[in-house]
């Protein structure tokens, strides 16, 4: 039975993988820096490792979905990320996709419960 547990764990990871982008685009409506974002995501139940999240933020920035600024007000300068208008549009599209997906899966799994 340990095998089934392990399979669920690894498949769940596959399921979550794509949701990190959506969660980032949603959270970064307000500017946030890397580590704080990581904590917020993990507290919210979207588990992600730093070595995945930080490169991901840069990729989203390169794609024009995020923009960043160095904030030097505090003793430790930090890079704050924020969604661009383009990022907001992509997020709206992803949210629609997500809701469709939830509906479809809910319908498909109804009989099997």
């Amino acid at each position: 039975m340990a095998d089934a547990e392990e399979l669920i764990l690894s498949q769940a990871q596959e399921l979550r993988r794509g949701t990190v982008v959506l969660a980032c685009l949603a959270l970064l409506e307000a500017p946030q820096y890397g580590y704080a974002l990581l904590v917020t995501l993990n507290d919210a139940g979207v588990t992600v490792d730093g070595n995945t999240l930080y490169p991901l933020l840069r990729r989203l920035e390169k794609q024009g979905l995020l923009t960043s600024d160095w904030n030097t007000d505090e003793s430790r300068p930090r890079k704050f990320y924020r969604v661009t208008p383009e990022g907001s549009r992509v997020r709206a599209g992803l949210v629609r996709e997500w809701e469709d997906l939830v509906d479809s899966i809910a319908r498909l799994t109804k009989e099997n419960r």
Partner: protein
Amino acid sequence: MSGNTLTDRYVHEVVRRIPADQRADVADELRTTIADTADARGAADPEAAERAVLTEMGDPIRLAAKYADRPLALIGPELYPAYVRLLKLLLTTVLPIVVAVLVVIEVLDSNDVGAAIGSAIGGILTVGAQMIAWLTVVFALIDRSRHRETAVAEVDQWSPDDLPELRQTEKRDSGAALAIGWNALVLALIVWQHTAAPYRAGNDRIEVLDPALWSGWIWPILVGLAGVVTLEVIRFATRTCTMLHAGLYAVAELLVTLPLAWILSQHKFFNPAFLADVNNGWTVPDAVYTIAVIAVLLVSGSEIVSRFREARAQS
């Protein structure tokens, strides 16, 4: 920034593997992120916390690959099957032929079974290693250039029309492997007869080809042969033949053919000392050279034409 903390060493290992224009920014961000995480872990023992955070971030090579959005493989899944197929063909067909030739030469030369076995083992190891090494280098380079292209232009549409005919592929695969093996063999033989001077005339060891060629016409021929081998490997790996490919092939082929035809027509191909010893005073008639020149030009001409035909059929 004291310069030699664990974090500094880690960050350096990451950023030296990503494009130069992003290095400073990624380094600054990574440093603050590591410090933030370590602070949150434990104020009691900052050093242990730093160590734990770096362990969690993992191998710098992996992290750098994520930042640079680069594959962590020398030869990716797209090219791997072609790589294995060609390697198998080379090691099972071309390598035995080369080794057999080496053994025959050794037996003729020294008439010693032990030496022949020695040269067989040496041949398998060195020639085999060369084949594996060069093939791997060429495929890795193709993979790198491909990855960049697809990253920029996304993937081009595949349709079932792209499926190659079964017969044709097999024929083309073995044809390409044969061409690779043949050109590499010629290249190796030219270099070998120069460095080993295998022919024995009286008490001297001499080269078969005219040694004067090494201060001139042999170089474009060697470069051309290397070019032909590389282009054939690319054709085999990508299974396509573009106009650019055909053009480059024509250049490489002409680089071999034109100097070769010139050398033959000037009767400067063989080492005069070798000819004198082999022919025992009999001179090679001019007609032989003329026929050789015509044959060389015809063969390479038809190869170039067939390459352009293939390219046009695929475009």
